[in-house]
């Protein structure tokens, strides 16, 4: 993609990001959202993150790659553990990076 197309894509991203931020403040300052919609919207972040995460750590070249040689899959476990125990975004990410860097330095032939 050339830089001009990327810029147009960014404008599109800006628009679809802004509308959900803006419209409720303009339209429903008193009305309540229906319960099913609240639950659905609350599920979306977890769902979309899982939908991006699992392929990133278990799929390689269009095929399932569940193996001890899969560095990302190995690093996912300590990252999850630190996130669960510390609830620190930065701490979890740093843990993941260190594990991946170490595995690459030490284990890769």
């Amino acid at each position, binding site marked *: 993609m050339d830089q001009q197309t990327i810029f147009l894509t960014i404008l599109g991203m800006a628009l679809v990001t802004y509308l*959900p931020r803006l419209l409720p403040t303009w339209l429903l300052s008193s009305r309540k959202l229906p319960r099913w919609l609240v639950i659905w919207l609350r599920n979306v972040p977890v769902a979309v993150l899982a939908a991006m995460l699992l392929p990133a750590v278990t799929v390689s070249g269009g095929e399932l790659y569940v193996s001890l040689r899969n560095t990302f899959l190995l690093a996912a476990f300590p990252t999850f553990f630190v996130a669960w125990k510390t609830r620190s975004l930065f701490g979890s990410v740093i843990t993941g990076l260190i594990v991946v860097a170490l595995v690459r330095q030490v284990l890769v032939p």
Partner: protein
Amino acid sequence: MTERQGSSDRSDWVSGVAAASPIVLGYLPIGMTFGVLGQNAGLSSFNIMMMSLLVYAGSAQLVAAGLLSAGASAASIILTTFVVNLRHLLLSAAVAPFLKRWNRGELAAFAYQLTDETFALHAARFPSGRYSKAEVFAVNISAQGAWLAGTGLGILLGQVISDVEPFGLDFVLPALFIALIVLQIEETSQIAVAVITGALSVALLILGVDQWNVIIATVIGATIGVALELWTNKPSS
């Protein structure tokens, strides 16, 4: 609930900037990460800064950088951004009742800088009547200022680091997703949502549904979650 007078009060601006400091500290490193990854994805410095200025949504920007380097189409990037950022609808709806006396222009400016983190801060303060406009905008402007500063530093850093693999930086995104999932889970039914959606996304990808697997799996997974929760927890509220 009386709104405090004097929106140009200097002490309100100072206390707003001070209140934003934890967000500032969090946004600097993640903004830097976006700057580095954006450059590795082939975005110009101008486009990287524009994304932080115009889109201003951390996880969506990192995801977009990943999709761009994977050669995804503009349509799938925009649609993915829409789905990733749809949660703001919920945040915006939650703070809206406190802002009834603001005019449309002020609401438009406020909504532009509404993020998960600024929402958490405002939602904790609004119920006690702390929503002077100066203070609220001081928080929001400090937060986006930190995001832009972090992005700029990341662009500079990215010019030094051309190969991210030795530092494990290509794992930033999966690691961030893991942490965000863990932090987002409030109800047990959401664990089921994460597992079902993740498995569905992998299955679709292996079956050859490239690029759209994330959106299809998300819509189905979030909907199954609604059914699960309405079915297991009888309405109480």
